[in-house]
């Protein structure tokens, strides 16, 4: 008799088999993510409320900022997302809704996204095969965010470390397609 209790399946587990020397893939199944959409003219009020609570203001376009217990990331015109570790059942939607009830709409995003961090000496070369933007350090630095595509799959890429390390975030239902592309992009490393 199979276990009748449903267990969550990892959307990003299919990314890790191509990890190899020079390419680490750290899947992030442990995140709580909430979308923040300030109402018209209320971005400043949202920023101040967040600054008071977490010590972080809303970042500028194409930027991410991290504090001790929360990360704020631009996610489009007049939109941001907040990211944190889920830890002991932390839920950013529940946490932020009362704080921003007046000036913004707060929406649960955690299970909508697949997230992984790519690092190591081959990380940039592998991602550059699919992403049409310039990832060279003179063009893309730590804290930079780009909404673009990887082999036609919409992704948000953020440089999270100097090694370099890049976080890739995409819609969960595209995680398998991304894994397929990743297998081709890393074939020269894993052969």
């Amino acid at each position, binding site marked *: 008799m199979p276990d009748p209790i449903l267990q969550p399946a990892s959307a990003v587990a299919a990314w890790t088999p191509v990890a190899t020397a020079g390419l680490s893939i750290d899947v992030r199944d442990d995140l709580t993510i909430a979308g923040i959409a300030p109402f018209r003219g209320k971005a400043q009020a949202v920023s101040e409320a967040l600054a008071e609570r977490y010590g972080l203001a809303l970042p500028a376009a194409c930027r991410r900022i991290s504090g001790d217990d929360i990360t704020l990331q631009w996610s489009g*015109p007049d939109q941001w997302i907040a990211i944190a570790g889920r830890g002991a059942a932390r839920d950013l939607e529940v946490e932020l809704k009362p704080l921003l009830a007046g000036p913004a709409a707060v929406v649960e995003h955690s299970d909508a996204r697949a997230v992984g961090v790519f690092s190591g000496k081959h990380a940039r070369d592998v991602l550059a095969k699919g992403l*049409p933007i310039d990832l060279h350090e003179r063009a893309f630095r730590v804290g930079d965010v*780009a*909404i673009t*595509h990887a082999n036609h799959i*919409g992704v948000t890429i953020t440089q999270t470390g100097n090694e370099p390390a890049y976080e890739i975030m995409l819609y969960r239902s595209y995680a398998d397609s991304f894994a397929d592309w990743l297998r081709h992009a890393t074939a020269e490393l894993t052969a």
Partner: protein
Amino acid sequence: MRIACPHCGDRGLDEFVFLGDARVTRPMADAAEPADAFHAYGYLRMNPAGPTDELWFHAAGCHAWLVVTRDTRTHVIASVRLARDVALELRAVASTTEDASA
């Protein structure tokens, strides 16, 4: 061709979708000759050899609507503005004109 998105910066054409002439405006339902007005709105387009305003959508990026001023002879882009800003400008001009005529 590359388009400098006001939000995202310089991006390749593969991230954008072309949506046509940015100068056409939808007629009001009570226009004097509605059939003619909507026919013109739906079908009649200029085909200029020179600068033209076009609507582009940053589909694989930030999802902003843009008004791109492009020379059809050279593909040189003179300006890229947010369609929202252009629409708000037009609305401000229209309300000023109404005030003046009132």
